[in-house]
């Protein structure tokens, strides 16, 4: 069974690498992380030198910052676009019919797509980290000597932790986009629903907390809130960014809630895909 899924993943990659979209998305992520990560930090440091800004230009802090930028800013929307497009175009072009008619196996086919997208996320993060390492070395050299009192805040051991957290962070959003696209059988509708839910979920969490602290329990089970908690390194108690951020759940709680979202949304998508008729174009 696993061999069959791996074979399907291989041939999904054969198709996907010939499309423009994944390469454009990778280029956007690279550009974004370099411009708004390392190099904006460099400009900021040159305007007003500080020990915190200096730390961001050096390794390994630059690497940790780059994956955090991907996840907390453009990453979610881009992964939703990629997932919805990879799944939705099969419906739009009608290619889902000849593929399934070959005895591919429904859940195996969808699982191979989702696993491949996740592998691409992992690959993209590695590329971003490699580019950020080079940028950090250059920016660090251009910045010159360390200002007085500067200390490197991240350790090298934080790099694989940040990488692992970032890889996991995007999984519930892949599951969300997969479910929305399978439900609507359309790339555009899948993207729209997922992006709206992502933005609304994040905004709603803040709004609920502003309205009443009694809604804190409900908020602690919302996707965006837990994703935010997961990607910030360490537990909520470690942050000093104000009352609302102090309400972030622990990393363990966030991990469990995100896992539940992955299983729920992924399971629903597979169930729907497995039992639904595949109508003509």
């Amino acid at each position: 069974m696993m061999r069959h899924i791996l074979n399907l993943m291989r041939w999904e990659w054969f198709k996907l690498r010939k499309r423009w979209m994944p390469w454009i998305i990778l280029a956007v992520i690279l550009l974004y992380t370099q411009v708004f990560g390392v190099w904006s930090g460099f400009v900021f440091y040159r305007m007003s030198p500080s020990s915190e800004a200096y730390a961001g230009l050096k390794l390994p802090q630059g690497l940790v910052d780059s994956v955090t930028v991907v996840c907390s800013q453009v990453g979610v929307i881009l992964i939703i676009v990629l997932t919805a497009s990879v799944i939705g175009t099969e419906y739009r072009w009608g290619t889902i019919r000849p593929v399934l008619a070959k005895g591919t196996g429904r859940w195996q086919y969808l699982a191979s797509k989702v696993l491949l997208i996740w592998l691409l996320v992992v690959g993209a993060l590695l590329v971003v980290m490699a580019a950020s390492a080079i940028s950090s070395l250059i920016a660090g050299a251009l910045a010159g000597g360390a200002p007085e009192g500067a200390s490197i805040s991240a350790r090298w051991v934080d790099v694989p932790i940040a990488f692992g957290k970032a890889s996991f962070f995007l999984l519930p959003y892949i599951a969300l986009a997969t479910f929305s696209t399978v439900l609507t059988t359309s790339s555009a509708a899948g993207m729209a629903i997922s992006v709206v839910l992502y933005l609304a979920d994040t905004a709603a969490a803040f709004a609920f907390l502003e309205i009443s602290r009694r809604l804190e329990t409900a908020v602690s089970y919302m996707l965006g809130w837990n994703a935010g908690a997961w990607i910030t390194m360490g537990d909520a108690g470690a942050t000093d960014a104000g009352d609302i951020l102090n309400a972030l759940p622990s990393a363990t709680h966030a991990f469990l809630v995100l896992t539940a979202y992955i299983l729920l949304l992924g399971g629903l998508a597979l169930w729907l895909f497995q039992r639904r008729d595949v109508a003509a174009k």
Partner: protein
Amino acid sequence: MDEPVLETQALTKRYGSLLAVDGLSIQVPRGGVFGLLGPNGSGKTTTMSMLLGLVAPTSGTFRLLGHDPGRGHREALHHIGALVESPALYPYLSGRENLQYFQGINGGGGDFKEIDRLLEMVGLAERGRSLFSTYSLGMKQRLGIACALVGDPTMLILDEPTNGLDPAGMAEVREMIRRLGTEGRTVLLSSHLLHEVEQVCDHIAILSRGRLIAQGAMRDLLQNRGAIRLTTTDNTKAATIISALPWVAGVTMDNGYLVAEAPPERSWELTAALSDQGVAVKEMAPVQVSLESYFLEVTGSDGDSAPGETS
């Protein structure tokens, strides 16, 4: 006798209040070309979609290549090539890459000789490296057939395979289907054109409003509806003699000829009966019913399409 490659039992598909396929029971024998014929909305495509696991039957069951729909159905599908409705392939891949992909997911990636052979077979060897999106409808249709043939399947399910082809292309595809049917494969074909089915099919099933109207070997179905045209030394006496035969459905006069509604293979019995009564036969010829007239006869008022065509 060989087990049929396909056997459906009371296969039914309902979409809300619409009964798309209504208790369909057909048997497709091994080898040859089996035609699924019927007017608009008769359930041909829905039937094919159920066989390919794209649409779940509401009730009823089927056995495909010896496998039931549940377990083993996927295994059966590995040995089936299909083209259902319009050819749907990846527009950003070339014809060759599309074939490579379908070969790969079927577990046999990398056989470039097979790809070359299939492209040659459907006349796309020159355009194999062009993107699918640049193909004409006819070329897309031919690539769809090539895709169905990937992995050398034992059975082909082709829904309107000559759609969009020019007359020369249609003739080529018909010839190809005929050849595939005689190479030991079984081809299940639904066609837009009655004369096409008449040319390539050995067996047919006629559907109307989701129901099976008739099925069997084409020759048997048409022969049972045949007639014998003759002229004798005494047509009046001959008409009386022939009318008395229990296996003759009726006798009419047509331009000085008698037309007996009887199976043509019993013409020797007719000659013998007339000869016994002293009437000599001067001329005799079988009258074959065309598939078109047979189709219109059995579907009655359902035949809402143009003569010679169903869709």
